[in-house]
């Protein structure tokens, strides 16, 4: 088994003045499934490809089991990768696809067949071994790509958005399968996705990246409860955390026309702060209580309902770049869902608000 460490790893594309991956420091523990997540262009795939040896490393080091692999060719790194489009060899059948790496390593034919069959059994694709990739469905191809990775018994698995080409239902099922397979094999895995739900459900730990810079790397629970900045707070969670700009005052923060009471606001009175409130920390209250807001639309999902509302009087002067319009989402009971256009009052669950610097987005701690 293996550990992976990025140490100040940097990639600057030629003719670009900004680093695609900027001094990345990241440790992947032995046997861990670590998910790299972020919006497109954040550098997560580049980081993965740097580890694979498919992307040049301009500066810093990448270590597998403590050894710097930066100058090794991909084939000398003992890694396996699942590509977004699977990259199955179209002219080989499933067994040949899965056995190709072993063939390249000079493994005896009989051994290849045994190991391919064993891997196929785990993934339940034994009956397709003779088929060509084009004769397979998307889900089957995905399994073959997984099979090609596990048959090698590599030190590290790299997965680049392996579920993004599946339909929504299959994606949810496969996501759990991959996670449990990874746990049973115990192979150190770096997994890239843009989907925070995938990241949260699969990862032992999740690393959030933005513009080539690592924002935070921690367990899903910690990321959700204790984000280091407004970006992580807004990126993790579905629906995302409400981020509303307000002005700090003695005893609370003024959001639009209303003063929301908070015992300790980590900012001086008069300063602009961004207030973060999870949708489940808001609830509907009787008139006269809480923050008045106008309902713009209600999404009913059966078990729960999301109320999209706009804080009344929230159009006043606020810090730049924040949620100027004061739009918030409330997670609530479908039975109590208000109608569109209705005026409601929102109550904030005590002690659930987070505060961020309105300019930098950095978390302000009380």
């Amino acid at each position: 088994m293996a550990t992976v460490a990025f140490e100040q790893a940097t990639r600057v594309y030629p003719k670009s003045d900004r680093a695609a991956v900027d001094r990345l420091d990241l440790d992947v523990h032995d046997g861990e499934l670590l998910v790299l997540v972020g919006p497109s262009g954040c550098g997560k795939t580049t980081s993965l490809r740097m580890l694979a040896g498919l992307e040049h490393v301009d500066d810093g080091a990448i270590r597998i089991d403590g050894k710097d692999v930066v100058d090794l060719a991909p084939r000398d790194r003992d890694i396996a990768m699942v590509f977004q489009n699977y990259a199955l060899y179209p002219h080989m059948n499933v067994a040949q696809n899965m056995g190709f790496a072993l063939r390249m390593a000079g493994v005896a034919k009989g051994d290849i067949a045994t190991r391919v069959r064993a891997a196929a059994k785990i993934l339940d694709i034994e009956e397709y071994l003779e088929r060509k990739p084009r004769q397979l469905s998307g889900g089957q191809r995905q399994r073959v790509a997984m099979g090609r990775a596990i048959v090698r018994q590599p030190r590290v698995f790299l997965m680049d958005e392996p579920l993004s080409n599946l339909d929504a239902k299959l994606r949810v099922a496969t996501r759990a399968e991959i996670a449990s397979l990874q746990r049973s094999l115990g192979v150190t895995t770096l997994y890239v996705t843009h989907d925070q739900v995938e990241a949260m459900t699969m990862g032992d730990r999740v690393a959030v990246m933005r513009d080539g810079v690592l924002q935070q790397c921690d367990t899903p629970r910690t990321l959700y409860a204790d984000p280091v900045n407004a970006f992580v707070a807004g990126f993790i969670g579905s629906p995302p955390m409400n981020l509303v700009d307000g002005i700090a005052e003695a005893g609370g923060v003024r959001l639009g026309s209303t003063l929301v009471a908070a015992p300790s606001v980590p900012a001086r009175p008069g300063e602009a702060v961004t207030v973060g409130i999870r949708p489940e920390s808001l609830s509907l209250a009787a008139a006269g209580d809480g923050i008045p807001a106008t309902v713009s639309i209600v999404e009913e999902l059966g078990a729960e309902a999301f109320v999209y509302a706009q804080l009344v009087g929230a159009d006043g002067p606020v810090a730049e770049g924040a949620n100027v319009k004061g739009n918030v989402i409330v997670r609530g009971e479908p039975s109590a869902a208000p109608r569109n256009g209705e005026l409601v009052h929102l109550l904030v669950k005590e002690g659930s608000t987070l505060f961020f610097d309105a300019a930098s987005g950095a978390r302000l701690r009380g």
Partner: protein
Amino acid sequence: MTLPSATAVPGGRASSRRGSRAAGRERPAGSSATAGYFFVALYVGLLGLLGVAPVVYAIYLALSNSGGFGSSFVDAFKDYRFVPAFEHILAFMLIWLISQTILVVGLTLMLHTLAQRVGAVFRFLFYIPGALAGAASVVVWLFMLDPTASPFAFVLHWLGYAQFNNAIAPGNLSTIFAIMAFWTGAGGWIVVMYGALNNIPHELLESAQIDGANAFKTAFFIKLPLIRKWIVYMLVLSFAGGTQLFVEPTVLGSAALGVGVSKYWSPNQLAWFVASQYDNFAEAAALSVVLLVLGLFVAAVLVWRGRLFEAE
């Protein structure tokens, strides 16, 4: 490109290492530069030996004439056969390029209004003569120009040509070569133009119809501008090829010993003539350099200005 220091510096943070790895930047997708050289090696060898070296050698021969630097060019330009040869191909190209452009574009637009399947039959029939490039097509046209046997005899008689020699009189040669070139080449261009027309989205033509354009106006205002690039491409390429005319006058010449076709009707023939008859390699080299520069110029313009080719 691998420096030992890359691993010798433990946990190196130093930006000084940036330099050590910058050399490997041209290495995306994990491939190595040496492999690339290996794959193109044979082709590069052939390119050097058969593409670049002959040009360099021809220039060298043309310039290193015993008469002094550049004197072989002067010899070539002063040669009494030089001007007529270029006049011949100029006349040939005027006739050929104008008629080919009009006819290929016209015929393609016409074919494009027909049903797909009918159009395909016509295109195939037009395209078949392309298989007869080279000497074969000239022989076929010898027959066609022979008033005693040609299926087009009535046309020849109508033009007043009773005998083969009348038909291939010197004054007719430019036209005859233009007909031959058109006969073998037009079908291929029609296929290309048709392909370009087929690339026009169907909705665009339908929208023109709804906007009130008839078939003529659609062809003129929508289709023609959209394939203009290809027309230019055809013109330029034909121009470059036309300057090199050799097969047609040579083969026709062997059918008419003592009659009209001289052995130096076209510039390429002239170059070959001075090389093979007088062993004047310097003048031959000078002539071929002139022709080469014409071809190179046209090709370079197309590649760097035309944006027709996927050179990334």
